[in-house]
């Protein structure tokens, strides 16, 4: 008995050690500098978690092309990213909002030069729903606002019926699903509702969902799975992750638009640049109330922010190559493939490129 249990014990310990051992003997991540690509070093960024999966794709491409480089990105949220950038802890920040006046002054001071702020990640936010036998739904911004405020509680409400003639809407209750965590998606969605709903939405444009009520889920995936597993649910999520769910089309002008990458990318072309900013600081005021044909106004535009000049020449080179890759057609395609973002249009990409080229 004794010997048997000793053997079991030995096997157990061996198993534990083996588990860790195999991990330790694996391939090492940091390849030596002699590999391909003439860049080397570590590039640190931080900020919006919305960009995280896109950055995963960009990083993969960038690190494969430049094997001596490691890119780190801490998804600590937009505010944290801007703060750390101003404090000088990181080389670039990812942010769902451009720098405000105070931040701009502080950032210019940190850089001892103008800043470079470019929108590189544009993602349509889809309104997803799960309703028996209903695959298509048309909504306008006022109705959307009422639904998410909790004022319209039933699917056969007159407002919804009026928008969807010929569709047999059940009388079941509506369960609005929103993000339980703070998020740029919420910020952009509520920004759209605030601007376009004509007063039915009263929560303001905020990162933390303001309405008490409805189903809260964490992360985009949480919202998607909550909508999927419930019935009579409606939610908002990055369009790329809405696979397999019915998506509402939104009334823009007189037509109904679906959240396609193309429709979202057009937002940048209709957007107005914020005045009194340097040429390299591309701050966009998105026109949420646009009536232009084929534009989908519920989009999230996320920026990457960097300096024009860095004290460390190598850091400067890294930042420039990184941003160039991110804004390039290949980079945008990589993000579109793996994060479902909308690639920048050619014209807009050229403007962005000019801004990035000013880093020198």
């Amino acid at each position, binding site marked *: 008995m004794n010997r048997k*249990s000793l053997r079991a*014990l030995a096997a157990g310990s061996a198993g*534990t050690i083996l588990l860790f051992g195999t991990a330790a003997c694996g*391939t090492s991540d*940091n390849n030596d500098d002699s590999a391909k690509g003439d860049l080397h070093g570590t590039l640190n960024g931080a900020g919006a978690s919305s960009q*995280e999966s896109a950055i995963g794709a960009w990083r*993969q491409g960038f690190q494969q092309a430049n094997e001596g480089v490691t890119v780190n990105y801490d998804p600590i949220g937009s505010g*944290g990213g801007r703060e750390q950038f101003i404090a000088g802890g990181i080389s670039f920040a990812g942010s769902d909002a451009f720098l405000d006046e105070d931040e701009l002054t502080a950032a210019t001071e940190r850089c001892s030069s103008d800043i470079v702020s470019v929108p590189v990640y544009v993602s349509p936010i889809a309104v997803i729903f799960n309703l028996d036998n209903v695959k298509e739904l048309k909504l306008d911004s006022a109705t959307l606002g009422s639904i998410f405020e909790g004022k319209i509680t039933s699917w056969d409400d007159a407002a919804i019926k009026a928008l969807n003639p010929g569709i047999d809407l059940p009388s079941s209750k509506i369960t609005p699903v929103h993000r339980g965590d703070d998020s740029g998606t919420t910020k952009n969605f509520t920004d759209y509702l605030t601007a376009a709903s004509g007063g039915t939405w009263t929560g303001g444009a905020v990162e933390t969902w303001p309405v008490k009520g409805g189903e809260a889920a964490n*992360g985009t995936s949480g919202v998607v799975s909550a909508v999927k597993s419930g019935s009579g649910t409606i939610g908002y999520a990055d369009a790329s992750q809405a696979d397999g769910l019915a998506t509402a089309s939104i009334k823009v002008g007189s037509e109904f638009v679906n959240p396609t990458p193309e429709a979202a990318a057009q937002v940048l072309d209709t957007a107005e640049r914020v005045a009194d900013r340097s040429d390299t600081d591309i701050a966009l005021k998105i026109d949420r109330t646009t009536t232009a044909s084929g534009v989908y106004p519920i989009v999230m535009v996320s920026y990457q922010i960097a300096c024009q000049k860095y004290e460390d020449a190598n850091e400067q080179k890294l930042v420039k190559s990184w941003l160039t890759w991110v804004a390039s057609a290949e980079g945008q395609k990589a993000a579109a493939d793996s994060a*479902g973002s909308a690639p920048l249009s050619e014209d807009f990409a050229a403007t962005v490129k000019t801004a990035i080229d000013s880093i020198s």
Partner: protein
Amino acid sequence: MTSLLTRPAAPSAGPPSLNRPAGRRPLPQGLTAAIWATSGLALATGFLTDLGGARGFGLAWLIAMLVPLASLVFEGRRKATDRFVTVLVVTAFMIAVIPLVSILSTVIAKGAPVLSAEFFTTSMRNVVGEGGGIQHAMLGTLIITGFATLISVPIGLFAAIYLIEYSDGGPTARGLRFLTDVMTGIPSIVAGLFAYALFVLIFGEGIRMGLGGAVALSVLMIPVVIRSSEEMLKLVPNELREASWALGVSRWRTIVKVVLPTALAGIVTGVTLAIARVIGETAPLLIIAGMTDSVNTNPLDGRMATLPVFAYSALMNPGVPPQPSIDRAWGAALTLLIIVMLLNLVARGISYLFSPAQRR
């Protein structure tokens, strides 16, 4: 909790039928056995066929209730109550086992297909979509838990030595014991916040590092080590100490050469269980150690992935498409579960093998 194998004999334990005080007419033993067997059969049917676990459980319970019912008819109210309580107690145990079975089967079913050599030897660096593994998380867990052990064991052991060997059992010692007990109740997230607040003072805002995780885990681990070591030191007979002192051996050498070796197996068991307890902690590591895709073996530099945090973030923030990431989360959860179970097994093995014969 460690005393599971050494507990004294349960009084009057034995199959219900052996315990037979005077009733009117004793229930035939064969009848009760038959009812219990049928009940078990119903339970098994419920889980194995499409009858469903819940219905099977209900059916089994109803059948089991025949025992007190028959008893009421044959043996009278007192015996019937006794048998009824027996059914209730067994039911309580069954209810406790259901979630365990469900959890284990879920984790194994979803996690086992993911485990492969590649899964243990690659990190998530440059991985988008399928592939990748948990090498970085396993190394992080190993390093952070290792440092936590290095911090906790000396402190915990010395504190236990003080309490048993040096203190006179006065108010100081009683107070310290009391505080140790209270300290075991510190929520893990508070430990994480403490480590964060401490490291912010040293390194500035937004700090994330592996060592911080080790400090947070130590806060949780130290009281466990103290309590278990104390119990073990208490078991060392006083005669051994007195004999050593009588030979002119100094007090500290007595402790090092006589007391500690005697209690060693028990102490090692306690430490192993303490490691098993903290290795699965998620919340403090989420706060202070953060998450990264690459292998980071430097606990003083930046974010470090760990198995529980990896499982959490892979499940909560899967990329596009989400399924590979969710699969990896279950794989990591299973790996973690295996490690914890092995540690528990090792601890029990040690305590079983080295416990004095009469305590078995």
